[in-house]
């Protein structure tokens, strides 16, 4: 067997995979960091007996996930079944990623009603405007997304993969 054929069947390890990837759970601090850095997540819920999975933009504020979406009948399902799963991830490569999964309860916020509820709505809108300053104004880039929601995280889990030394989470030591 020539040296060339041997190399074809047993190529040397590429520099990118010289270090074996490691996968582990994210600690509590890093889970919150990933949630805080992200602005687009995926929201899974059951509506009319079907599993729905939709991308939504969001802000992580006061320990809650606050976002907005379009008015649709499937969201009305939240009024009767408010259990959801939310996921956000960061991916820098096949073996360099972080993923956080939140299980919680979703609530639609309304601009009307008792003052405490209106105050919650105003705080949520203010939080969304940190992401989209023109949200809910005449210059709103997505005016159709008129439903404001908040998710209470009841359980937060996270996993990561990394080929680098150290914790491997951006922004951490």
């Amino acid at each position, binding site marked *: 067997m020539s040296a060339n054929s041997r190399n074809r069947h047993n190529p040397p390890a590429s520099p990118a995979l010289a270090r074996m990837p490691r996968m582990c759970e994210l600690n509590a601090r890093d889970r919150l960091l990933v949630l805080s850095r992200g602005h687009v997540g995926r929201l899974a819920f059951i509506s009319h007996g079907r599993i729905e999975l939709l991308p939504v933009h969001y802000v992580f504020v006061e320990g809650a996930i606050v976002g907005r979406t379009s008015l649709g009948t499937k969201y009305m399902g939240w009024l009767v079944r408010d259990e959801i799963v939310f996921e956000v991830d960061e991916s820098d490569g096949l073996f360099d990623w972080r993923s956080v999964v939140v299980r*919680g*309860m979703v609530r639609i916020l309304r601009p009307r009603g008792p003052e*405490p509820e209106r105050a*919650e709505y105003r705080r*949520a809108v203010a939080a969304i405007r940190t992401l989209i300053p023109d949200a809910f104004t005449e210059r709103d880039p997505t005016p159709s997304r008129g439903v404001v929601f*908040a998710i209470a995280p*009841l359980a937060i889990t996270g996993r990561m993969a990394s080929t680098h030394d150290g914790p491997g989470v951006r922004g951490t030591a």
Partner: protein
Amino acid sequence: MTRIAPLMASLVLLSAASMEAQTALTVQPESRVILHGRSNVNSWSCATSTFQTRFDVDSGARVEGLEPRSKFVRLTVTLPVRSLDCGKRRMNEDMFRALKADSFPEIRYVLTSYEADEQLPTADSVSVNSVGELTVAGRTRRVEIQVNGTRNDAGGLRGNGGVKLLMTDFGIKPPTAFFGAIRTKNSLEVGVVIRATTAYVARGSP
């Protein structure tokens, strides 16, 4: 009025229920006050073992005069709101805010009368229906608390009591969290766990 030292007196009513009106009991650290409630997500509880009891009698009255519904007896139980522990720091803060701890740092219960149950299942049993005034977040409401317990050979007492309340009766808006996604139910139950030992016999003393 004569004030007997905090944590030493109290519970004389329970002694009186078993016809030993002058036996005072010391409340043990295992005694607790527990708030049980529910939210749209789960049930929760907050508890404290930090409370003070004070027993006031009219020094002009004979001790033997301590009878059920006597106007000469006053038992006061005070607990610091911020001693309540709900198991999570964030929930503690939500609870303190709901109870307006900054303005009203104490929860106070003042016994105004009691009635011992004469129909007891065993000789060691103690059963008292107490009536008192409960002050929470600056509002006072009349409450009835049924306390049932047993007396041990050393004269100590193990008792439990409870009362169901509505937060709104005390002007408390049921707490919410996470922009209202978690909402506490209005009703809650206050439980009392009493563990006490005999401290001294007050017969003949003021």
